[in-house]
């Protein structure tokens, strides 16, 4: 009897514990109460890095970062921030292929697993903004007790920081730029010299294509392709905007819709400039080695850095830091940098930026801002820029352009003169992006470009209609 009674008592305890734990798990999370104008912060004092006064040592900031040269540098310096402020920083790093949906999942939670995260003003950023998942930062930037005078936000190029102001946001700032990239051309100086091709005489896309034919004939059998470019990479459409802009000319376009939809959401994929941009991209894929249709940016960087490609098109200036690093590249000193050449109808490219943002539901906003202020300060940018080759502050470019090399700095400067922000986001843009990737790969595999672009145009019209954008 006693054994049976004991079993019953144990059983009741197990049931109660199970139900209690489930009820606790279902309880609503406490809402973040941290306000930008926290009263317990003391005035800013002079510090080696522009941060405000030290906070209690038991505080922690959780940070989610994409695997990136900027992230690699910041992790080496984060202990300095902890030593200055007493705030511990937990950093989680993810590869880009899993980063975006982790950001969406985390931000949608009532208790995000991170306070600070890397953001780009793409579809993920726009979704975050639409759902009030991302905190506006203006109150922090404008509060002298939270942001030191030496931080100097206006030192950041406006054409980069403006990208982090979403439409209808009344100019509010949702991210602080970290690193900028413009889509340019990398080439192997030594291979072009061997073939007696004077790169300075290559002014247009057609000039370069003729040169690539010569390079392909000379080196393909030696395992070096004339060109590499992103293929079936989920981010390829961002760079493709640069190729389309090169043909677009001086015509206007709508931000967020870029060249693909007019003011009435009528798709423009059959516009000759768009068709030509897609055809150029497909042609460049075809110059690549077997399997190039599946190339991600990682594959392209590896091919070029390993000396297996003569040119690398429409990709991020940030990769210059990899190609000049002896530990990552076998072509150090052999890489030439050029602005995107002109086409018969235009001359343009695009740029893009990573930024640092704060989760609106973070319960730790003041300390999160302290970390953000430190991580994006002029002093820290001088450290990170050495790896990213893409600083966002005018002061950094002014003092460091020698470090990046004259040819690189000149190419980036020329590129930025013809560059527009390349951010596309609207409800349904994810589906349009996938259709764009399909179209490019189909053209590279030999399908009729006009027919393929017509199909894309029709699909895009359906997508915007299904999402309530077009009637």
């Amino acid at each position, binding site marked *: 009897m006693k054994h049976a009674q004991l079993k019953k008592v144990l059983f009741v305890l197990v049931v109660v514990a199970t139900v209690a734990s*489930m009820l606790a798990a279902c309880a609503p999370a406490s809402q973040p109460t941290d306000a930008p104008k926290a009263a317990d912060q003391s005035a800013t004092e002079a510090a080696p890095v522009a941060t405000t006064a030290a906070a209690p040592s038991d505080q922690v900031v959780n940070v989610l970062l994409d695997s990136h040269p900027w992230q690699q540098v910041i992790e080496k310096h984060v202990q300095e921030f902890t030593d200055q402020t007493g705030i511990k920083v937990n950093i989680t790093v993810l590869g880009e292929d899993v980063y975006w949906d982790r950001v969406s999942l985390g931000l949608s939670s009532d208790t995000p697993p991170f306070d600070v995260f890397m953001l780009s003003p793409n579809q993920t950023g726009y979704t975050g903004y639409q759902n009030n998942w991302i905190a506006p930062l203006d109150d922090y930037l404008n509060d002298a007790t939270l942001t030191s005078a030496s931080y100097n936000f206006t030192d950041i190029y406006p054409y980069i920081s403006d990208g982090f102001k979403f439409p209808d946001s009344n100019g509010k700032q949702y991210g602080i730029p970290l690193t900028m990239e413009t889509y340019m051309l990398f080439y192997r100086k030594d291979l072009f010299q061997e073939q007696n091709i004077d790169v300075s005489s290559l002014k247009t896309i057609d000039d370069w294509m003729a040169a690539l034919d010569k390079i392909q004939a000379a080196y393909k059998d030696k395992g070096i392709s004339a060109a590499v470019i992103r293929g*079936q990479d989920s981010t390829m459409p961002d760079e493709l905007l640069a190729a389309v802009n090169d043909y677009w000319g001086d015509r206007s376009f709508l931000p967020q819709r870029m060249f693909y939809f007019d003011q009435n959401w009528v798709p423009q994929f059959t516009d000759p400039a768009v068709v030509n941009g897609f055809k150029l991209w497909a042609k460049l894929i075809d110059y690549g080695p077997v399997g190039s249709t599946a190339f991600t940016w990682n594959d392209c960087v590896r091919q070029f850095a390993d000396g297996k490609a003569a040119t690398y098109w429409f990709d991020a200036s940030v990769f210059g830091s990899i190609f000049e690093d002896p530990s990552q590249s076998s072509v150090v000193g052999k890489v030439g940098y050029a602005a995107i050449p002109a086409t018969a109808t235009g001359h343009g490219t695009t740029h893009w930026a990573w930024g640092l943002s704060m989760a609106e539901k973070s319960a730790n906003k003041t300390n999160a801002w302290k970390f953000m202020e430190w991580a994006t300060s002029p002093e820290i940018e001088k450290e990170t820029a050495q790896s990213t080759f893409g600083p966002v502050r005018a002061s950094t470019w002014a003092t460091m352009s020698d470090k990046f090399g004259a040819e690189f700095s000149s190419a980036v400067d020329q590129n930025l003169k013809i560059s527009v922000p390349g951010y596309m986001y609207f409800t349904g843009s994810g589906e349009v992006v*996938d259709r764009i990737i399909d179209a490019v790969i189909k053209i590279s595999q030999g399908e009729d470009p006009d027919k393929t672009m017509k199909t894309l145009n029709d699909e895009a019209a359906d997508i915007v209609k299904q999402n309530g954008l077009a009637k």
Partner: protein
Amino acid sequence: MLQETITLKPNQNRPGLIRKRKINQKKVLGYLYLLPALLIAGVIIVYPLLYGAWTSFFQWNWTAGMQNKAFIGLQNYVQLLSDEYFWGALKNTLYFTFLSLIIELLLGLGIALLLNGITKGSLVLRTVMMFPLMISDIVAALMWKMLLDPSSGVINQFLLSLHLSAPNWLGNSHLVIPAISMVDVWWQTGNIVIILLAGLQSLPREPIEMAQVDGANKFQLFIYLMWPQLIPFVKTAVVFRLIDLMRVFALSWAITGGGPVRASEVSQLYIYKVGMGKYLNIGYSISLAFTFAIIVFILIGLVNKLLPEKN
């Protein structure tokens, strides 16, 4: 004559009632013991299932703001009827499933028969067969992605060394599903081997020995004696693998991302992309998931019915 009168004291039950009460108590206690598991299952399975089913009747796209949720009835289900990408992904899934299943079954049966026929070293060989099962799908996928690389992968380097052509396994829309199927065969044939080997080793030895004495050869032994008794085990293996194969995701996602041009995009990958993976069209993705689940359920039911219980 003394009459013995049995007088029931107040609250004294007859023995039958005591037994019935004890049985009822045991039943109730049994259900109460199940309660924690039922509560957990209710919270993590039943509630999400019901909530998901309800959500599939809504237009709910997070990119338009989570607060914008509109009831649209069966519109999501009507839309998926004409969704060529959903049906294309289903076609890829079925192609991958049946190709992998047939190869794994034939290969698994052959290996099980071999292992059943040897005594020395069978334990070592069995352990070696199980090695691929010990790694996760994502590890298998990433490993084979490198092996199948058209220019630097070991598979093509080996083929070239034999002066054979080295195909673009993952970039050719006709080869990509067989290539991914090859990965699954390497990874999961061990599962079939385990089940069929257990079946072979459970067969009674006497009929086989008697048949051997009567002069039956190995083929006749297998066809007339072993195979009929092996059918239930084959059926178990088929049903388990069918469910596993239909829900393939990681192999497609990690090896090709669904390319080239969706030639290897499977149902789970498409559903993921429509939902949390990319489009954030949550209402529609749930309707796709439910529809796919029903299709799998029907398929398993059909296979169960078509395969005999025993010959």
